[in-house]
């Protein structure tokens, strides 16, 4: 029949293959330096906005530290508040 829907016993695996991990936890970071703008740029999008946890996979504890570090770097003009083309 045309209106018969396909059913799966298990949920299909789409976009769930790559395992997410916190890069700070994995490498054993204790402190995130605000004086290192090149590293902090990895956590920003091309507009200079802080990327959300759901995209980077960072754990909450380190996301908090990273966002504080980025905001300190912005205050000291090491990183831009607004940008056109970063990364």
């Amino acid at each position: 029949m045309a209106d018969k829907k396909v059913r799966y016993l298990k949920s299909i695996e789409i976009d769930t293959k790559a395992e997410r991990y916190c890069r700070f936890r994995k490498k054993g970071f204790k402190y995130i330096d605000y004086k290192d703008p090149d590293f902090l740029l990895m956590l920003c999008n091309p507009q200079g906005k802080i990327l959300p946890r759901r995209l980077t996979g960072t754990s909450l504890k380190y996301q908090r530290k990273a966002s504080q570090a980025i905001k300190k770097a912005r205050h000291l003009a090491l990183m831009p508040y607004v940008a056109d083309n970063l990364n």
Partner: protein
Amino acid sequence: MNRYETVFIMTPVLSADQVTETVEKYRALIIANGGKTVHEDAWGLRKLAYPIQKKSTGFYHLIEWEAEGSAVLPFETEFRRDERILRFLTTAMEKHHIAYAESRRDKSNRKAEPKQEAEVVVEMPAKEASTPEEKA
């Protein structure tokens, strides 16, 4: 005693003498407030990520210092009154921050040491080469 880290930006208009004079002023201020400097790092003239007071560059300087918490407020008010300062940021250092800063300093020291050894090695053959000439 707590440990603090202060980074401040001076206007690019200053001459080299004026920069050292300004830094000296804040170094003296820390000691006057009953503290001491642990480490200093002059980053020199750097480009700012965005203009501050219509300036696109500035002299960065970092001071790591130890003092009682009451010393921070007079230290920062002096920054606010100073026209030569574009920006400043004081952070209280927790133990991981201190460990990070010290390990980083060790690394830069280790990098500096082999260079000195290399210079000595270069000097040695030169002396040996000069002595036979003197004998001859």
